[in-house]
């Protein structure tokens, strides 16, 4: 087992400066509206990823997948609404901006351990709130796995929600009923289970918390 995936490739950057840089890059994404600015911002994100992540290539691969999926959905809506000529570039620009708003968060999560996140957030909010936020972020991958599992089962049960089915709007109710509803129910149930697990180890017995000194 590798000891830690949170030690940077070149630099060991503390969580605070990483959070600040990530937030700045995210905010810049909303202001960047020309291809040059967006390309420059993408380069800045990649540089940050290379510096702070142990496995930047894996992260970039995941990011590219997300970008293509998201772009396909947004472009489809823009083309339907504005036509090909007027819809392609604005759709692509919106998707690019949205991606650049989220990607610094992915870099931060990939390169920062949970105790580091709690320590960084504890400076600007209560330690309990900081812990709850960090736990929410930790469970996102598990939630994604759960949703994927529900999706695959429902597809075999006959739900019309394969990407090609979703091109036809009359199949969207299947997406809502068969995937979104069970996913929301499951998310709520998981939130209850996580809260119970935390209470079982005395989370909340005292108003303040201390913080594990290591990673």
């Amino acid at each position: 087992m590798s000891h830690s995936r949170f030690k940077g490739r070149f630099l060991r950057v503390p969580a605070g400066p990483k959070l600040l840089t990530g937030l700045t890059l995210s905010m810049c994404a909303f202001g960047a509206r020309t291809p040059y600015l967006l390309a420059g911002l993408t380069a800045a994100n990649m540089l940050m990823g290379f510096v702070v992540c142990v496995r930047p290539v894996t992260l970039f691969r995941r990011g590219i997948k997300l970008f293509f999926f998201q772009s396909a959905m947004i472009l489809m809506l823009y083309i339907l609404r504005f036509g090909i000529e007027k819809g392609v570039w604005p759709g692509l620009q919106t998707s690019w901006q949205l991606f650049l708003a989220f990607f610094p968060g992915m870099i931060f999560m990939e390169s920062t351990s949970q105790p580091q996140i709690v320590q960084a957030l504890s400076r600007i909010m209560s330690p309990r709130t900081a812990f709850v936020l960090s736990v929410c972020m930790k469970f996102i991958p598990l939630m994604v796995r759960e949703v994927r599992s529900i999706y695959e089962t429902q597809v075999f049960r006959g739900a019309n929600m394969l990407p090609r089915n979703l091109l036809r709007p009359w199949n969207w109710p299947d997406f809502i009923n068969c995937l979104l509803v069970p996913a929301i129910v499951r998310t709520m149930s998981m939130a209850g289970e996580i809260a119970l697990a935390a209470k079982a180890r005395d989370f909340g017995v005292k108003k303040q918390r201390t913080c594990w000194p290591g990673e």
Partner: protein
Amino acid sequence: MPFHRQAEQFMEALNFVSGRRTLLCLENYSYAYPGGRDFVLKNVNMAIAPGQCHCLTGPTGSGKTTLLLAIKGLLPPGRQKGAVSFSSASLKTGIVLQNPEIQILGSTIGAEVAFALENHCVDPVLMPEKVAKALSDIGLKLPLEGDTEKLSIGQKYRLILAALLVMEPGLLLLDEPVAQLDPPGLEKLLTVIRQLKASGVSFLVCEHHPHPLKEVIDTFWRLQRDGSVRRLNASPPQIQWDRPYPGKSPSSNSSEKVIKVRDLAVVDENASSVWSDVSFSVAKGRRVVIYGPNGAGKTTLLRCLNGFVRPSKGSIHIWGESPSPVRLRGRVGSLFQNPHRQLFENTVFDEVAFTLKRLGGDRKSMVSKVEDALSRCGISELSGQSPHKLSYGQKHLVALSSLVVYKPQLLLLDDPFAGLDQEKSQQVMEILFDLSEKEGTTIVWTSHNPDSLSDWAHFALHVEGGQIVAQPV
């Protein structure tokens, strides 16, 4: 006289009578959930002495987890009668719930074990020593900065135990460990229970299948359907499979190949090999169990067979073609772990009829097919009820009915017996056996227990150490 004083007096009397100290005592304890009409637990009387391991068995949904939560004090404020009392007010209890994945709250091993210390505002300087001791007590030799995501389920389970031991509890409550752990994980857990018992820690284990833990259990209890608890004189008997052996059954004689896998290899998202050089074939009507330890890639193999995971090398043919969800829909049935997650309709009837509606067909034949499926699964009386309000075992049967209804030619099931008691497991087994024998359905399912259902399968695929080997059973 205040109620807590009465409870203390009862404990003293009990200790005096029994001649030994009692750690935990439940006296005529009853509980009903807020808004619930009936009591889930009724007049429960139990006592546990230090250094003992007690096991609570009982049907799915009978209230075993509720009893553990009552002892830990984690139940919502419903109606309560009787008392739960401990030998000392300072006695701490720890609980490991089902599904270790959800209970790991920290991303590193050190942070996970230190969680309770953080909650009690222990000075961070003192934490590393306490954490290292808890890990050593549990026999986990792992770096404190190690990533919790990379641990096996067995290691995660023991990590949660270490995270409880750091609070120095006198009583540990374990909810269905056997369903979560593979044989090596169970073996390690047995060692830990033995050691902790010797140091005076008591255990109360809720378990449908207590046989793997039999050697450390001192007393068995059974939670009845009416909510009362009865002490058993011996361990509950294991249900035996009394159907004909697969070799004798007619469905095993077909030579038509349903699945053909050649030189298959799969890599995960980090480009590491999950397993490689896998070749096997399955004929029509055969029943195949894929078994191996947790995390060995059993689910990945099922996802390859249903076309959701693309192999990095080799070929898969299902009825002579590469698998794809579009092509296989209607012919293949797929059931993943915790199938209650897939339920979304308002009634059991609609839930089961969903696939038929999507496949097309007239209303009259649909109604008769749904009724037949519900009757096969023994849940006809639930037809008009909401599937969301059923017990875990009933939800499991509803999910299974939604497959049985369209009689798929191939069934891919991921740990279909997880969380079910012996009676419900037997019922699911009977349904699948009939489907295989009468309809010629080919069934592939996964399990982390090599002993389970070996009488039932025609052959097994053993997944371990990056290899998959076909074995006769």
